């Protein structure tokens, strides 16, 4: 309890609150601008965390993550252009409400649902993560290797629309991660005598290129278009701007149900908030007494989709904190931020760095509360950001990309890596290949290779070590089931779809 109070006191210090506030405002602004994604915002903010301690850097990233996920609803409701793919379902009813002069009502309901989703998933994180971590303490190299095989398979096969494409992205990430010194014998691989490559590709330039620069190229292709006409915040009828008791009563169950669905989807690697949102929205519409209202301004539609997408935020941190497995692009970047701070997530973090764990818990709670305050107080100035033309914004972002990539190691080589990664990300995007599995595989490759080789050294090359130990065998079975399930889904031509 003392530690919790100490961490709470640390978070409430003026400097840390300022950093959290900056993260929340920055996240909300970036999330609100169509074309700028939460992943891009987190990638670009990593260089700024280099000179910070673990607490402020985590607070900033969590603030961006939570507020950015909500921020997408602002442009979804006012512009009919979701700021983030996860808010696409919000636009369906939110924009209709805005056209009826009820934009404020939709935005207020969105923030209520988002705060609930965020806090509920934080509660699940607090309850589940230590249990999973305690179980994971029994893992040796064979169990860890098979767990990572399972994670890579799931992330690869569930991200995007095609299993071969997702798995190819993961394999490409594995191949890129082999550049640099071999983790067991320090033999250089594909370094071509360049000393900059001895540690492999620097992580931050790679992710800035893959997520920020590639997105910029994609936006350039679409001509930096913004979306529909910007709706006014307030309509002629002030009553229409209020969230009434009747609205709350109608939305309560959709919010609870979507929060649960969001948490469930968030825990599974590779799915992401887009799927959670559509599941929450579709389920609410399915059980509604009058489903025909949906798409024409049903407030429950906004509530359900926003609760679901924010419920993903805390849930995705469960495998990250407990097992050191990032389930999507955002958590992969947050894992990188942990590593930069010298903290390795995983089961041991609960024993060795409990202060960091409490910082994540309390930081998420604080970020969600602050997000609510900022949304209520500063909605009007926030909306003016939507008027900034993207053709002005993107050259400035290019400048930040270059500055951030250079500042990591004061090295121009890293800037070229960032440009190359941007080009690669753009090409993958052209061929409809998801980028998140590439990044997740890139990060997991080193621990996976280490665990695999350690397991085979200890078993003297006997491969049965992966099926004779019960937990390792369990993950092998799960991997096979995951492949069979996704293959069946793919053959039927239906299934899930991620936008990010």
């Amino acid at each position, binding site marked *: 309890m003392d530690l919790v109070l100490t961490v709470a006191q640390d978070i409430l210090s003026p400097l840390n609150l300022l950093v959290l506030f900056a993260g929340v405002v920055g996240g909300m602004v970036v999330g609100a601008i169509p074309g700028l994604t939460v992943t891009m915002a987190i990638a670009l903010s990593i260089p700024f965390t280099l*000179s910070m301690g673990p607490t402020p850097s985590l607070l900033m990233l969590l603030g961006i993550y939570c507020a950015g996920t909500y921020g997408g609803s602002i442009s979804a409701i006012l512009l009919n252009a979701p700021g983030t793919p996860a808010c696409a379902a919000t636009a369906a009813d939110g924009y209709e409400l805005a056209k009826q002069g009820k934009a404020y009502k939709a935005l207020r309901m969105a923030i209520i649902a988002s705060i609930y989703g965020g806090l509920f998933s934080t509660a699940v994180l607090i309850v589940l993560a230590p249990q999973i971590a305690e179980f994971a303490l029994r893992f040796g190299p064979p169990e860890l290797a098979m767990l990572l095989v399972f994670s890579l398979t799931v992330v690869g096969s569930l991200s995007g629309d095609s299993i071969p494409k997702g798995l190819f992205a993961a394999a490409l990430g594995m191949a890129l*991660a082999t550049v640099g010194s071999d983790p067991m014998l320090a033999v250089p*691989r594909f370094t071509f005598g360049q000393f900059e490559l001895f540690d492999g590709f620097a992580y931050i330039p790679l992710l800035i290129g893959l997520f920020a620069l590639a997105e910029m190229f994609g936006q350039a292709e679409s001509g930096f278009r913004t979306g529909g006409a910007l709706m006014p915040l307030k309509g002629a009828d002030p009553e229409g701007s209020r969230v009434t008791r009747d609205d709350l009563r109608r939305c309560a169950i959709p919010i609870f149900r979507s929060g649960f669905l969001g948490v469930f989807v968030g825990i599974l690697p590779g799915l992401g908030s887009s799927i959670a949102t559509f599941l929450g929205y579709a389920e609410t519409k399915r059980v509604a007494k009058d489903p025909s209202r949906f798409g024409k301004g049903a407030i429950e539609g906004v509530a359900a989709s926003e609760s679901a997408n924010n419920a993903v935020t805390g849930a995705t941190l469960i495998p990250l904190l407990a097992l050191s497995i990032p389930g999507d692009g955002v958590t992969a970047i947050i894992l990188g931020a942990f590593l930069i701070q010298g903290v390795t997530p995983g089961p041991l973090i609960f024993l060795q760095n409990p202060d960091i764990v409490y910082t994540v818990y309390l930081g998420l709670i604080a970020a969600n509360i602050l997000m609510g305050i900022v949304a209520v107080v500063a909605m009007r100035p926030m909306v003016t950001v939507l008027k900034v033309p993207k053709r002005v914004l993107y050259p400035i972002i290019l400048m930040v990309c270059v500055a951030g990539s250079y500042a990591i190691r004061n090295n121009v080589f890293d800037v070229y890596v960032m440009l190359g990664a941007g080009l690669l990300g753009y090409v993958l995007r052209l061929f409809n290949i998801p980028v998140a599995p590439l990044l997740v595989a890139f990060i997991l490759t080193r621990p996976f290779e280490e665990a695999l080789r350690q397991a085979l050294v200890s078993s003297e090359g006997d491969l049965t070590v992966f099926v004779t130990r019960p937990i390792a065998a369990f993950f092998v079975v799960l991997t096979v089931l995951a492949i069979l399930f996704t293959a069946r889904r793919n053959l039927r031509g239906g299934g899930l779809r991620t936008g990010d």
Partner: protein
Amino acid sequence: MQRIDCVFGIAVAILALAFVSFGVPTISDEWRQSGTTRYFTMGPRFYPYVAGWLCVVFGALMAVRPQAGLPDMIDIRSDARWRVPALMAIAFGYVVLMQVLGFVLASAAMLAVALATFGVRRWYVILPVVVVAPLAIKLLFLRVFALVLPGGMFELPWVLG
């Protein structure tokens, strides 16, 4: 038949095959001769082989089982075709220029060119962005986050202070 996936899949499979055939064997295999490493069953080539062969397999799968619903060719709007190469050229030129002129001057030049290229014509928009944004970023990195950006030949002493 989605030709785009077939072509891409075949290209991936061929490149990955070249990687495992010619790239991976360039990794030194001398570790086997060292007596201290006799317990290692897999060397530094093992994992690149795995990654390379996976790329071959999934490339081939993309070619034989293309994703449904995709067009035969990449569809880029004709009026947008020049924008991506232009942005790439601007980005590359900017990095080259930054090493000579330093961050502030190269950024100012890049912003002016990029804004003009993408159709921003109003001087009262271009001027503040070109002047203020590079200086603000430089000062933010240096003073707030203690991160150094390239000074180049014309480092501004008053910025470094």
